[in-house]
């Protein structure tokens, strides 16, 4: 049989399907459902130091080919999330990745210390960034360097989640020189929806993030570029993975694992469908393992 398990930055996952940040909220029960459905790892909602209520409704708009959301990073803050993640690790057998949002090294360290229960951190570089007047970390490579360095010095395993905006390769380079363990790419693309009869932006946050099928070709591009420039740095390829084809495409582009988010709108069964498809593909095409096809499109 083909080998589905993968090693990502020293983490052994039973398979490459990682539930992306956001969809499982702050619920241990949902994390458990994802594990039961077959996921290789789960990522928490982005944790900030203090609780955030998020943006007012509407927070999502469904398109035929994706989803636009402006959740606004609601989360109960680091202290409460620490309790939740410790419970998650008690209940789950698969690795738990804690997504964090921080503007400074100190803030990041305080969040990491409060959380405690995780196998890796994922720094959300699209988190609202105070220093940059509300811009995000994607426009401040030096800030990313500082935060990643601080987390690495404290011994954490750190992924950097990149958005497709700004000079993401410059940000990645800084994170690389700070010793980042891996990249997650991509976050949502900034987008907006106006209802033509209401003649108003729909989302409470006005600007939202586009996810799903629509951004898949953008994700493939970013993952391909990251793998070309940092072949030894693992990437969790995320963006429009609706089925096994998109998952394999990202793996061929260079992803060691794939993130699944918006697709879960159709139910947790999607995880099994993706895994089944990857397995069939590997078998039919004569590959022994997921790891044997990582980055093959560069050959």
């Amino acid at each position, binding site marked *: 049989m083909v080998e589905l398990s993968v090693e990502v930055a020293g983490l052994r996952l039973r398979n490459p399907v990682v539930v992306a940040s956001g969809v499982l909220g702050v619920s*241990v029960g949902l994390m*458990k459902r994802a594990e039961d459905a077959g996921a290789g790892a789960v990522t928490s909602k982005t944790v900030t130091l203090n609780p955030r*209520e998020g943006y007012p409704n509407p*927070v999502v708009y469904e398109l035929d080919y994706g989803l636009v*959301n402006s959740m606004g990073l*609601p989360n109960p803050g680091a202290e409460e999330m620490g309790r939740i993640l410790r419970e998650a690790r008690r209940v789950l057998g698969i690795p738990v990745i804690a997504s964090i949002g921080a503007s400074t090294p100190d803030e990041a360290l305080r969040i990491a210390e409060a959380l405690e229960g995780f196998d890796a951190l994922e720094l959300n570089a699209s988190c609202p960034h105070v220093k940059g007047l509300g811009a995000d970390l994607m426009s401040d490579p030096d800030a990313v360097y500082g935060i990643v360095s601080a987390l690495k010095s404290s011994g954490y395993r750190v992924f950097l989640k990149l958005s497709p905006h700004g000079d993401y390769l410059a940000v990645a380079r800084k994170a690389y020189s700070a010793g980042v363990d891996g990249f997650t790419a991509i976050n949502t693309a900034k987008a907006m929806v106006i209802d033509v*009869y*209401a003649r108003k932006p729909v989302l409470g946050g006005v600007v939202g993030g586009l996810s799903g099928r629509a951004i898949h070709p953008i994700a493939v591009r970013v993952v391909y570029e990251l793998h070309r420039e940092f072949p030894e740095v693992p990437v969790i390829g995320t963006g429009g993975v609706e089925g096994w084809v998109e998952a394999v495409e990202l793996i061929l582009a260079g992803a060691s694992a794939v993130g699944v988010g918006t697709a879960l709108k159709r139910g947790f069964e999607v995880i099994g469908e993706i895994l089944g498809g990857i397995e069939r593909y590997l078998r039919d095409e004569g590959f022994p393992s997921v790891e044997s096809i990582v980055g093959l499109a560069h050959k």
Partner: protein
Amino acid sequence: MGYTRARVAEVLDLAPSVKMYILELSRPFGSQPGQYVMVWLPGVGEFPVSVAGEKGGALRLVVARKGRATGYMHERVAEGGYVFVRGPLGRGFRLDARKALLVGGGYGAAPLLYLAERLSGAGATVHAVLGFRSREHALLVEDFRRVAGEVWVATEDGSEGFKGTAVDLFERVFPGGGYDAVYTCGKELMMEKVVRRAVEAGVRVQASLERIIKCGVGVCGACALEPLGLRVCSDGPVFDGETLLSLEDFGRYWRDHSGRRVPLPP
């Protein structure tokens, strides 16, 4: 799935802080009893409302004033005005009862009215227990009388019908009533007692839960119930009794806007 703009054909005052809106739909929603819609007031906000009825191109919604957006709706959305609706969302009630007892509290009676119409239309016997604070707060009673075989009303101050809570009245009429299904909607502490009682008696029971709904389509986790990770917005809002009793959250916790579990408000 975008929004449907719907004209407000009629607004009825049902009780203090509770109004019924009859909306004209440009396309039928095909909603089922127990499902809900999200009502968007552009520039103001969006909130979930259980469907209280859909017939032809008309959608009936009962809106209780609870916050900024529902307050705006009560004050500023009049007949001839417009609201924006997406849905129907979630999973509704199972409709296979032969003799059903419906237990509603306050505006929780609204989705049960739609259920009563459907069950009764399908040939089932439908009885209803409706509890309110007082006669002034009683709502939809006459509508229930048109479709249900028996309608019993309880008020806490005794100003109408039975003096006491809906649970008190339920305890009287449920035993020996020969019901094969119980449906309930209202305050969660009320529903918790009804559900427990029905499950003990071996009668199938379903309840419709209320939580803060953000996305409405199961992708944000804001309404997840522990420890099963059931999402009120898409796995529910209607759950069966056994499932509910296996949850830590039922009757005890909900989540605030940040996602933190906090004790249920009384």
